[in-house]
């Protein structure tokens, strides 16, 4: 019973450290590439399938599935609802696809995950027998679902940034960034902040920084998917934000803003201009506490010489290569992206359609007055970088844009660091 004095503490420490850090581990398996054979299998097979998406907030998807199921007795669709957290939805899909499970036939995929999943070989290429008609869809939305020239998902809903402005103070909205900065004197006279977007260090900053770079004529990635940030255009774009923050045209507290904080600031009358998603429209025009109810207008984001380039939000719908019933899955994808369904997303869930024609539909415009402006926005939109390394790319943009806006490093250094970080991510290991 003589345990060496040394062993007991070591064993105790080990057990404690194990139990406490075990939760940190996990995530498993190696990533298989290819999937060529899986992609060719089951293309004519029909039968019951499962559709997966995040929380169905406005009860949009359930009525549609009921409608489908009533018409397709032998090809019933089961709805698997995930949480309302994007990260968790992503990880849930990864786990199921990685295990090559056939239980997720059709999945709702955020625009920024599409390239990653396609490169992992998990999404059925929508070509040949599996092709869908994208001619009526807005080009930017199709681009967000295209990886290496192949369409991997069907665009289903879209979203774009809009400039909200105080029409009681600014009769005509600015068309360019410089024009908007020129109007900041109006904000000073009224003792309010001039412009804000979402500049907290999170996904929203990637959206805003990419918009600034794209609107000035630059781009984060070039056509080959390589970073392209050491350019005069990219510099001019990011400098616009950095300079406005240094001048005070973007108020200091905007560095902590996410969508909701920036909405509340505008809604309580503390901002002249706000970049945000269309969802804020109904809140700002109906909420009792809103100080700007009838005092705000909407316009396309300001660019260099005309409308700026918004980043694109929204969701695509993809078919899993492991699905056992791909013919049914494809029909269901077509059903979800049909004009009728698209219209239902807009009326029931205030989700922007991907079909250009619907933006001028009288009935829809009456319900969602921002549609014409949003159409301009999405027509000029550039998808966020379409890359399988999106998590690394978005981090590179966030970290460096954040430092540049706060003035912790120069815009040149920030862009060159951004370039190097993205190169490193793309270099793999």
């Amino acid at each position: 019973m003589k345990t060496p004095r040394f062993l007991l503490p070591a064993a105790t420490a080990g057990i404690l450290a194990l139990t406490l850090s075990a939760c940190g581990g996990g995530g498993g398996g190696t990533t298989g590439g290819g999937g060529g054979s899986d992609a060719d299998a089951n293309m004519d097979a029909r039968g019951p399938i499962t559709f997966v998406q995040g929380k169905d907030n406005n009860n949009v998807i359930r009525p549609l599935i009921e409608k489908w199921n009533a018409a397709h007795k032998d090809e019933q669709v089961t709805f698997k609802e995930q949480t309302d957290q994007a990260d968790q939805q992503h990880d849930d899909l990864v786990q199921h696809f990685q295990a090559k499970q056939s239980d997720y036939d059709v999945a709702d995929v955020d625009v920024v995950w599409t390239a990653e999943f396609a490169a992992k070989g998990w999404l059925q290429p929508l070509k040949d027998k599996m092709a869908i008609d994208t001619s009526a869809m807005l080009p930017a939305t199709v681009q967000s679902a295209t990886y290496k020239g192949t369409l991997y998902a069907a665009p289903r809903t879209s979203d774009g940034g809009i400039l909200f402005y105080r029409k009681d103070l600014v009769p005509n909205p600015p068309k360019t960034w410089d024009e908007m900065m020129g109007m900041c004197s109006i904000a000073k006279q009224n003792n309010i902040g001039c412009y804000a977007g979402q500049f907290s260090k999170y996904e929203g900053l990637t959206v805003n920084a990419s918009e600034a770079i794209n609107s000035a004529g630059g781009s984060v990635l070039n056509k080959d998917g390589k970073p392209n940030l050491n350019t005069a255009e990219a510099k001019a774009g990011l400098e616009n934000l950095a300079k406005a923050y240094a001048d005070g045209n973007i108020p200091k507290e905007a560095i902590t803003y996410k969508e909701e904080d920036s909405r509340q600031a505008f809604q309580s009358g503390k901002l002249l201009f706000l970049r945000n998603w269309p969802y804020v429209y109904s809140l700002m025009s109906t909420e009792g506490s809103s100080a700007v109810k009838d005092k705000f207008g909407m316009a396309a984001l300001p660019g260099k010489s005309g409308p700026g380039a918004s980043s694109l939000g929204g969701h695509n719908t993809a078919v899993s290569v492991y699905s056992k019933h791909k013919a049914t899955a494809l029909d269901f994808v077509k059903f979800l992206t049909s004009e009728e369904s698209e219209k239902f997303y807009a009326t029931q869930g205030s989700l922007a359609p991907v079909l250009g024609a619907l933006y001028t539909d009288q009935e829809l415009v009456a319900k969602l007055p921002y549609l014409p402006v949003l159409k301009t926005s999405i027509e000029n939109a550039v998808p966020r970088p379409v890359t399988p390394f999106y998590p690394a790319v978005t981090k590179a943009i966030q970290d460096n844009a954040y430092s540049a806006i706060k003035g912790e490093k120069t815009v040149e250094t920030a862009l060159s660091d951004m370039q190097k970080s993205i190169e490193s991510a793309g270099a793999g290991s």
Partner: protein
Amino acid sequence: MATELGPTPVKSPASGGTPVHHAPKGVGEDNRIASQGRWASWLLAPTIIALATVIVYPIISAIVMSFQKDAGLDPATGLFTAGGSAGIQNYVNWLAQQCSAPDGGTVACPPGTLGGQFWSATATTFFFTIVTVAFETVLGFWMAMIMAREFRGRSLVRAAVLVPWAIPTAVTAKLWFFIFAFEGIANKLFNTTILWTGSEWPAKWAVVIADVWKTTPFMALLILAGLQMIPAEVYEAAKVDGTTAWQRFRLITLPLVKPALMVAILFRTLDALRMFDLPYILTGGANNTTTLSILVINQIRQGFNSAAALSTITFIIIFLVAFIFVRFLGANVVEQSGATGKGKK
């Protein structure tokens, strides 16, 4: 937590249950003891197998993964291909903050990569651990002293003190997130315009404040359990001897409460070293509030195998800290489990 303490006391009679200790006994009794030992190990087997499946297997699988390369992109097809063996490269990359370079080699990680954050995340983790545990110990001790006194409504106070600890950390983090918003209560109350989540030191202190608020009750309860083990006669005797309150605290309370205190500090330290949800929700890891656990989770999205290496490194760091505590600072969680083990649960 109590499960791993179970086997130790039971094992000793099983292995050391030789007849030597028991002076007068017959042959049958010996057999009974031997068979009892075997019986005991059979009874323990399911627990040990369960622990091996849920703790040992994931750890080993993570360690195996950590020696694999992450999937790389085949430039021709644009598809990911498995990376193959990496040797210790993943570990070297983290420790030396090296990232892959386009030419196939490695370069110092540029700002904006996870690899470039390893040492700053380590420093942040230790900063949070040391500062929060220090505050929690002092405040927890103070709260425990108050709760140990006899007064009306004592059980109410004890229950109320537990409230912050009973709230899930994610909820706490969200509450503090609203408090520390620019238009939040903190700035309104003190009439300040601090960007709590927008610059380095305010962000760090915001995390410390939220964590201290949440976990001090845990500390207080563990210390309270220790305080109540001290017999009242010891204090009475000391009073008769004419000691001052400070002397009683220093010479009686502190030494006698030390075993419980050390266990409480050990548990809080290990807990703080893996801090994740509070800074993740409160600041998103911005402004140098990224802890090692946040780094691991972010890395999982960029590549499992490197993340496995990082979580193994984190594990080793926590192991070393736990070892130092147990070996050198006398945090005794196993021996005299009657005295300290009880207060722990």
